[in-house]
């Protein structure tokens, strides 16, 4: 018990990193998701194909593998492409020394992954708006783009709040996978404390409890948003 309380500051520091990465990733994920989701609905076949491939890949492979690819894989890719990087003095430098900053890799991997799920959420949201809405907007002379922006998306956004909330919560828990590339988020903080204290049960239980507090708060916020937007209908 005492060890749990004593390690709380360190765990909370990890938790704040978990929150930061989650918020950043969901934000970028929403941007990716909106673009990819709309591309999935595009008339353009190539765009549709690319978007579908994107979703298939990132939904069909484990996030853990994606994290490893982004962090360990991409520097090698860069090296293969260029062979050498040039340092500040113009001297060629072997790129294998180059490592992507961990946090950047973490946010990239999580954003790409949640972007795929969010794309599907947006696509479903747009498709759930009845056809008459698009027809009414188009019959007023709006272009497809104007109709999407002013008529379809505002209605779709309201409908996707609950599944978007789910995705937010799922991602928050999934960031624990980032421990494998040495990001000291909440889970990794716990592991580090256990490594010297051997108090696995107490520490991991505390870690779980902190996750629970965060996800619970998040789901209440989502509920609140959902209710508020409903009344403004």
């Amino acid at each position, binding site marked *: 018990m005492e060890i749990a309380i004593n390690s709380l500051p360190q765990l909370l520091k990890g938790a704040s990193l978990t929150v930061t990465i989650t918020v950043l990733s969901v934000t970028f994920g929403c941007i990716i998701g909106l673009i990819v989701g709309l591309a999935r609905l595009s008339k353009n076949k190539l765009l549709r194909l690319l978007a579908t491939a994107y979703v298939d890949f990132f939904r069909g492979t484990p996030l853990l593998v994606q994290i490893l690819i982004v962090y360990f894989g991409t520097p090698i890719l860069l090296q293969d492409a260029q062979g050498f990087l040039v340092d500040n003095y113009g001297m060629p430098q072997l790129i294998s020394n180059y490592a992507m900053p961990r946090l950047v890799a973490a946010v990239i991997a999580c954003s790409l992954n949640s972007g795929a799920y969010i794309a599907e959420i947006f696509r479903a949201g747009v498709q759930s708006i009845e056809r008459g809405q698009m*027809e*009414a907007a188009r*019959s007023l*002379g709006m*272009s497809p783009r104007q109709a999407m922006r002013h008529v379809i998306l505002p209605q779709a956004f309201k409908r996707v709040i609950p599944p978007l909330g789910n995705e937010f919560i799922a991602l928050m828990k999934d960031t624990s996978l980032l421990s494998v590339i040495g990001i000291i988020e909440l889970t990794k903080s716990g592991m580090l404390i256990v490594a010297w204290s051997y108090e696995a049960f107490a520490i991991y239980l505390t870690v779980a409890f902190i996750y629970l507090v965060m996800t619970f708060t998040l789901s209440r916020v989502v509920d609140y948003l959902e209710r508020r937007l409903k009344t403004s209908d």
Partner: protein
Amino acid sequence: MIEVRNLDKSFGKLVVLRDISCHIALQEVVCVIGPSGSGKSTFLRCLNLLEQPTAGEIFIDGVKLTDNDNTINLVRQNVGMVFQRFNLFPHKTALHNVSMGPEIVQKTPRKEAEKIANDLLVKVGLADKANVYPDQLSGGQQQRVAIARALAMQPKIMLFDEPTSALDPEMVGEVLAVMKDLAREGMTMVVVTHEMGFAREVGDRVIFMDEGRLVEEGTPEQIFGNAENERTKAFLSKIL
């Protein structure tokens, strides 16, 4: 005003419209009647390219309708449409449902668009509902807002797709009254309807459609009084 030549429309193998040709003059009110599945709604929807014709040509005000996006958007600004199920935008108030078209499509400044919208809501008798959302309006009120919304673009032609079919009986009258006013003001109107009373009273011409064909057309007196075609007679005998 509207010239339709040899219009065909099929969905896959299902042929919905066969070789329809007709001419609708300026300020004319044409009512399209016929059994369900006769293709009358599809015909109407072809007139502003909500459905793409399979073959044939449509000219509106001398401009040929093609699937070119710019032409479509331009033509649609001149052709208002009112739907059976209203299709109001649920996230906008009655006022903004009406002001949205001018504001977004014609780039009318917001204040001005709202003034236009307010005037139109007065015209359809809903001045007091300006700030109400569609789901708080009755069916008849929603349809009147939908008419105002279409009118906000100052169209030259108004298309009505069974505008009263989804309404409770006691609300049909208020919508028809607004449409009569429009007809009296000289709006060119094409109305797909089951309201034979309206067709008889307001229509300049009645078109009877069956199985995708334009079977017979004439003045309301001709069609309702002494139709020539057997199918027209059979249909009318069932509903009159």
